[in-house]
């Protein structure tokens, strides 16, 4: 790892808006005021009020009246949705990131089969569904352990992309250490039709992704330049989830927990440096210190307390620690219920971070973690979807009353898709 703390984004550089070409001085001042509020909340440094971070996947799209499928296949519609969302709600931070809504066309070009998405597998008006197959079989553990990156490139990629079968015949990079004799074996696969086809599909998908980046990424940059700090920076996962979400699947990893715990633990250790690197490199690429870490398979019920302390927490803690060492800000998003995990996760390395909860006694979370971390959450989607604005206002006010205004960010309990716009508005107004 070559990055030094001084090279990368920090909360300070984010508050300044370093690297953003603001449209005018007012936009810069607005940006800094909003970012300062958010940073103050994170640090427990007396923010002028509680900020709202409306963590969203498809909400801006639905808010603007488009279907998620329209957004995934028409960059201009997504662009319009994002601008409408910001215009209507004047949010404290722009709570959305481009990678969460990629080009559906590009996904089709490579035949991505890890998720169903709106317009391909899922109904146009609905959202993603992770398929959670065992893309990495039990028999693959040995290859994975030998060289995780090589396994992902030549074993996993052909499994998860139907149109990249040829990647299975990609050359091993280690060949290149054989001097001139290594070059021919390295080049040869690129002459084979399946590899060429995979590369052609990648080139085409790359062009589609680039178009997406230009239109949608351009809009995100425009939104920042007009004064809205982006609350999404980098992303990484807990090492256990890295294995469980997309390699072994929920069932697969749960069976590993029971049938081959030693092997599982070894694989978690093996993948931890990759989780760290993913968080750092994505954050540096976005020039944004906030590293989103959605937590999936360590929630209450998904394993015992002892298993959490053995298989989930130590490696996640190592990721948090490595990010903090570079002055990055981990944003742990604990999906599901985390009630029984609170004591364990209170053993935190020192540094600024956010713990965002879906389902927890927020007062207790504040008591246990409040000195060490900013907590965020947990307005339920059930409330935002099915009730009236008054109920939302009451919930938000009660919540703030309970947890106080220091080191707290008001946020939905999940990455928001469907919600009544008037209820979202009520959530924003509750703090103003």
């Amino acid at each position, binding site marked *: 790892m070559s990055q030094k703390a001084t090279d990368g984004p920090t909360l300070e550089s984010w508050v300044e808006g370093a690297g953003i070409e603001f449209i005018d001085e007012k936009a810069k001042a607005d940006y800094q005021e909003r970012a300062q509020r958010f940073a103050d909340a994170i640090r427990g440094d007396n923010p002028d009020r509680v900020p709202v971070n409306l963590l969203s996947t498809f909400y801006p799209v639905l808010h603007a009246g488009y279907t998620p499928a329209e957004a995934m296949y028409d960059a201009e519609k997504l662009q319009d949705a994002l601008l409408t969302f910001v215009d209507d709600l004047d949010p404290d931070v722009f709570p959305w990131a481009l990678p969460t809504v990629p080009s559906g066309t590009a996904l089709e070009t490579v035949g991505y089969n890890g998720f169903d998405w709106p317009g391909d597998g899922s109904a146009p008006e609905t959202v993603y569904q992770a398929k959670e197959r065992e893309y990495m079989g039990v028999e693959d553990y040995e290859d994975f352990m030998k060289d995780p990156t090589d396994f992902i490139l030549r074993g996993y990629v052909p499994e998860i992309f139907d149109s990249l079968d040829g990647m299975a015949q990609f050359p091993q990079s280690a060949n290149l250490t054989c001097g001139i004799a290594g070059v021919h074996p390295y080049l040869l696969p690129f002459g084979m039709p399946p590899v060429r086809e995979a590369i052609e599909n990648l080139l085409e998908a790359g062009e589609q992704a680039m178009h997406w980046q230009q239109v949608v990424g351009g809009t995100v940059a425009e939104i920042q330049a007009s004064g809205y700090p982006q609350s999404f920076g980098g992303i990484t996962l807990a090492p256990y989830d890295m294995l469980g979400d997309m390699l072994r699947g929920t069932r697969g990893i749960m069976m590993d927990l*029971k049938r081959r715990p030693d092997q599982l633990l070894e694989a978690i250790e093996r993948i931890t440096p990759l989780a760290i690197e993913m968080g750092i490199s994505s954050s540096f690429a976005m020039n944004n210190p906030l590293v989103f870490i959605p937590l999936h398979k360590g929630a209450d*019920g998904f394993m015992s307390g002892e298993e959490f302390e053995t298989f989930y927490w130590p490696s996640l803690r190592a990721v948090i620690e490595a990010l903090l060492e570079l002055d990055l800000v981990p944003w742990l998003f604990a999906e599901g219920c985390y009630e029984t995990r609170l004591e364990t996760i209170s053993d935190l390395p020192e540094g600024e971070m956010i713990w965002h909860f879906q389902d927890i006694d927020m007062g207790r979370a504040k008591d246990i973690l409040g000195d060490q971390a900013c907590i965020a959450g947990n307005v339920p989607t059930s409330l935002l979807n099915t009730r009236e604005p008054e109920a939302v206002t009451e919930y938000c006010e009660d919540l703030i009353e309970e947890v106080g205004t220091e080191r707290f960010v008001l946020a939905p309990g999940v990455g928001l898709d469907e919600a009544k716009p008037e209820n979202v508005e009520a959530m924003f107004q509750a703090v103003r």
Partner: protein
Amino acid sequence: MSQAFVNALADLEEDRAITMAEDRLEAGEDPLDVLDDLKKGMSIVGDRYAADEYFIPDLMYAGEIIEQISELLQDEMPEQEAETVGTVVLGTVKDDIHDIGKDLVYFMFDLNGFEVIDLGVDVPVQEFVDAVEEHDPEIVALSGFLTAAFDSMKETVEALEEAGLVEEYEEGKVRDGRKVMIGGGQITDDVRNYVHADGFENDAPAGVALAKEWTGKHMEA
């Protein structure tokens, strides 16, 4: 009864339990006795889950062990009519493919003597209607993890009402006849009311307890 076998099952000692089942069958024991012990062992597993001693991976593991032992038993067992405490039509609703919660509900209901008709995941509204007509269940159990499931649940209940298969919903009142239960990670009482369900739970043992309460009432009615 073999206490050692029951214990091996309850403690999820996969290899040991399977070897013991094989040995008992080879020794000519009545497969029904083995089945009886299997149920006893799994009943302990269910109790431990309800008591937060076991968790989802343990139940899944138990499911794998049951499957293997059931396969051993299958060839040697006479067809039998099992007594049930009630029938449940279960499925994950339209536009949602999450199966873990639903499978846990299946496991716990089955363990507790319910006959469970499992329709799978992403179940179209009409399929629920057809299954309710066919199986005449006391309870329709709708599972869903996504927010999108709220509307699918609502549509499903509406279709059941329209088909006259459940009574019209009245706020604050549990239906007299066939009842609708919903469950899932994001389900709250607000969602229950939105969906027009009679009850909701967030975990499988609580769902069983509610179903037992309901079927008790149902039988009195």
